[in-house]
């Protein structure tokens, strides 16, 4: 944002343009190869933008991590495309689905049944699902608009798009869709637990993104491609809104992201719009009744609770529990940061090179030691930011329209759109059964429990983080004091040690293998083979050098001798072969 003006500022816009180009390519491609091109393109743009602050080691590491973890997924997609080509002889979507329909229209053999799993791996990598989600929280090292655009709204949903686009192929194996659904559901609840315990609110939003993506996959898996796509749409707006408010706060408080160090911002001059738009985002995220977020989430949950196979009902309950957790952590942020007494500590970011026009506080901002709220003057967002927030907020409202239309029994344009796509054509479109739980059908169930989850989560958050802030620390201390349960907060705060686990089990062995290969390359391939071959010409040169000794007679002898040798050889050949020329 504004703070980044300076050398290499253009790189940011370059990267964003590359991203938009690649994302459009991905979405508009009519064949898998072009889709793959866009897929890799958005990966590249993501890498470039996450590592935008290339002087910051953590940003560079995050960029690398994003890229490398995505490689695993991309390998899956590449193999999937290859398998599709081998099995169906085409990579064009239209032809592919035609051939698929003509050929088997259902379960295929082993190589065919691998296709959905390969595509799934690609989707999980790009959309940060278990087990490949680890890159997304770190990717928040990038500039906040990038987090908003790429790592919340658009790129990460490419995986959802991929599965929706190739939906018919997921019937090739009976468990493929169920796998998608369960991975999505587990990711949703797993990352929600982590999100509940993070103090960096940009990271909270990052984990909430993973969690919401989990809902989308759950929707795909349980058979409502409309739900998944609709949730993608609503999520894009409210999550972008949340990230941009986070960015505005970061901007205002010198990079401060710790929700313990900010409080009552809605009363700080200039942060009113940020606070209220953030509230809208949080309400939408926590599926507040009749918000767009609730409308889209409910489609998924209804479908899950109505499902009969693969334990989809349980998945529905997991989704509901996650919804409560989501409401809790969303409002944990809002109550901490925007409500309560006014209190703030600036972050460590010193923007001294661009602050010439903010003379009133520039002197303070340049001194990182002045961390008390009395000396630090926050940097209120101006209309460049506020305007964007309001526009996106309006968008977030607008995404609810299809849902409201459906509630009124009118035809829903989002659903109509889906009905004409390959995602719909291949989907089972199982109608919600009349399964009855607690004497209610799924619709009623979700309406009731969804509302309870949402409001309950908000109420708990309100108690711990607005009304009785001390009690949250007490609860934590109590949990930590009991050995039998102290692992819960510790594990949640440390993100279940997944990074450490990957570090030990994957990065470690890979690092050792890399060292061995590097040694081999340096000393055997380069040292012996490449340089050895390279030395041959020079050695030959030294061998022949004595011939050029500068002595006239020597030259004459060598030349005449050479000529004589040539003549002798030719005459010999000619005489012995006995064949005339």
């Amino acid at each position, binding site marked *: 944002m504004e703070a980044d003006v300076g050398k290499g500022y253009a790189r940011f816009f370059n990267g964003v343009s590359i991203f938009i180009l690649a994302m459009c390519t991905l979405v508009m491609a009519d064949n898998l190869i072009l889709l793959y091109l866009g897929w890799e393109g958005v990966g590249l743009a993501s890498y470039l933008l996450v590592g935008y602050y290339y002087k910051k080691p953590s940003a560079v590491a995050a960029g690398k991590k994003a890229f490398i973890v995505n490689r695993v997924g991309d390998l899956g997609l590449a193999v999937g495309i290859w398998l599709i080509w081998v099995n169906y002889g085409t990579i064009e979507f239209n032809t592919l689905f035609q051939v698929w329909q003509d050929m088997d229209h259902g379960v295929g053999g082993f190589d065919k049944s691998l296709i959905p799993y390969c595509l799934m791996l690609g989707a999980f990598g790009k959309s940060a699902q278990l087990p490949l989600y680890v890159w997304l929280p770190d990717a928040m090292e990038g500039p906040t608009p990038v987090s908003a655009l790429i790592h919340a709204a658009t790129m990460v949903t490419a995986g959802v798009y991929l599965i929706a686009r190739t939906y018919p192929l997921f019937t090739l194996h009976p468990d493929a869709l169920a796998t998608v659904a369960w991975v999505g559901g587990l990711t949703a609840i797993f990352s929600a637990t982590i999100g509940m315990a993070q103090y960096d609110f940009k990271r909270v939003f990052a984990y909430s993104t993973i969690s919401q993506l989990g809902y989308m996959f759950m929707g795909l898996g349980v058979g409502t491609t409309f739900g998944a796509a609709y949730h993608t749409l609503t999520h894009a707006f409210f999550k972008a809104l949340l990230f941009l408010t986070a960015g505005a706060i970061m901007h205002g408080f010198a990079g401060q992201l710790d929700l313990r160090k900010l409080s009552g911002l809605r009363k700080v001059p200039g942060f009113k719009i940020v606070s209220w738009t953030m509230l809208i985002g949080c309400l939408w995220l926590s599926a507040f009744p009749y918000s767009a977020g609730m409308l889209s989430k409910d489609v998924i949950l209804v479908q899950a609770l109505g499902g009969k196979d693969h334990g989809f009902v349980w998945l529905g309950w997991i989704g509901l529990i996650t919804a409560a957790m989501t409401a809790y952590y969303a409002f944990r942020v809002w109550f901490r940061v925007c409500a309560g007494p006014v209190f703030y500590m600036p972050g460590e970011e010193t923007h001294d090179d661009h602050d010439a026009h903010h003379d009133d506080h520039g002197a303070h901002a340049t001194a990182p030691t002045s961390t008390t709220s009395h000396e630090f003057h926050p940097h209120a967002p101006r209309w460049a930011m506020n305007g964007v927030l309001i526009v996106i907020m309006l968008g977030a409202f607008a995404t609810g329209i299809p849902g409201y239309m459906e509630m009124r029994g009118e035809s829903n344009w989002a659903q109509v759109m889906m009905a004409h796509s390959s995602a719909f054509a291949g989907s089972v479109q199982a109608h919600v059964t009349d399964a009855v739980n607690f004497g209610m059908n799924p619709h009623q169930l979700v309406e009731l429990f969804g509302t309870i989850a949402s409001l309950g989560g908000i109420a708990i958050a309100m108690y711990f983080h607005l009304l009785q802030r001390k009690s949250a620390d007490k609860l934590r201390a109590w949990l930590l004091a009991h050995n039998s349960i102290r692992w819960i907060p510790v594990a949640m705060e440390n993100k279940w040690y997944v990074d450490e686990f990957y570090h030990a089990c994957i990065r470690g062995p890979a690092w050792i293998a890399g060292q061995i290969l590097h040694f081999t390359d340096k000393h055997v391939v380069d040292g012996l083979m490449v340089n050895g071959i390279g030395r041959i010409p*020079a050695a030959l040169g030294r061998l022949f050098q004595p*011939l050029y000794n500068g002595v*006239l007679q020597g030259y004459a002898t060598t030349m005449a001798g050479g*000529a004589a040798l*040539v003549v002798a050889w030719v005459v010999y050949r000619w005489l012995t072969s006995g064949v005339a020329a």
Partner: protein
Amino acid sequence: MSSFLPMGPKILVLTPEIIVFGGSVVTSIIGLSRSKTLRKSVPLLAAITLLASLAALAMGYSHEAAEQAGVLMPHFNKIIKAIILVVGIGLVAISVGHIDRRMEEAVARGATTFDPMRVVRGEFYSFMLLSICGAMLIPGSPDLIWLFLALELTSLPTYIMVAMSRGTRRAQEAAVKYFFLGAMSTAIFLYGFALIYGSTGSLQLSTIRDVFTDQSARGGIDTLGITGLILCILGFCYKLAAAPMHFYAPDVYEGAANPVTGFLSFIPKIAGFSALAVLLSTVGWSGHAGFSETGALISGLPAPILATLWMICALTMTLGNIGALLQKSVKRMLAYSSISHTGYMVLAIIAGPGLGFEALLFYLISYGVTNLAIFGALSGLQKRGEDVESFEELSGIGRRYPGLAAWLAIGSGSLMGMPPLLGFWAKLMLFMAGVQAGHTPLVIIAAINSAVSVWYYLRLIGVPSLSPPGTSSEGVTKGPSSWPRFAGAVAAVTVIVLPLFASRILGNSAEFAPTNAKPTSATTPTAPVSTPKQTTGNSPQETPRQIDTQIALHSSPTRL
């Protein structure tokens, strides 16, 4: 000899040479004038002479007259002459001010008194024009005596030029070496001429060709003729600086002054290649064309000659490149590089008329122009009145003279064959000609050599432009005249720009074809340079039908 032709067409064909010769006489006289201004105008006069000659060639040359005059390959003849003249103008330009600057430096130091008679030496340019005149006479030789005299006319002035180019003993030594070894090589090819005369009973090249055709129709050219031809080739190798006659090149090139080295690495070489082409046209490429077992078109040269050329080609490029690797002197390095380029060009001679000759001509243009860029830059520098010749002296000069370093870099890039510079297209065309003629192994050897050569060419890019200035490069300054630098600049720009117009330079290769053949666009790879894709796709897998037409193109030495 009944075959002496009427003088009319002969004089018409020889007008350019006559102009150059006249210019040489005039320059040598003016060079003796008492007026310094007049003496200073000598290089200009030489350049005007060459321009006039070029104009005469462009306007007065007709294939019919040339054929009547006994020229075996009229089109080839014309283009060779044009190349010599154009590059010759550049060579004159890079020599300006060079011969005199040691004297001027000595006067400035007070070591000697100013002597107006020694300041501008017109005879140098006179010799230069004479040598150019000789080289121009070669491709049109109708008989062996003419060929011999023309070759000597090319070489003899160069011995003197080497001797007078610098005052050092090394120049004298180089001149003496060059002269003695040149005499030996002359003896070798003169012996070859004698044997050919013994075998065919004629000195007239067209008669020799007929006799050789007869002989091969009756079972093969006799031993005498073949041995004579091989001796000729070996003798010409001296002019080309090709193995096994290349030993003199590093010493002589190093001993001579920079512009003379530039001259030596081009004019005798193009003379040698013209001589080789003229001589081989009496045996080669006619009635011998056929298919190898793999179906590729093979050159029609008699087997022993093919074997000799094959060996010369492989040896020359390899020895040249290997020798260049370890050199500390730029000029020695360029000498070896010149040897290796000869090796590549022999490949074109083996490939024969059509694509091969086109490649040869294009390579000669490329080599001549690139040489001008490099020697222009080197001649534009001096160190206390002496030539700049070691890499150390060039170290870091790019900081003071970025232009000169750029010319060196562009020239080097072109010599190593870096796309999109001229040298790349020349090499590409050459290799394609080689592959098409069925000499893939040679092309592979050439490609490996080309890769090895990057090592030392990169030094000529890196040392002036990237290395820090060293102690030995401190005293290096610009030369007294800006003409060499200007010529280098023009040549460097040409290296970049010429590929765009390359297809127009050689003219339509249909001109290589006999008039009755109707070449289709597929069989006339006129413009591999402007349309590289098409041609690269074209050459290796041609349909047999296309190759048939190629044979038709290849099999008429009368028109070539």
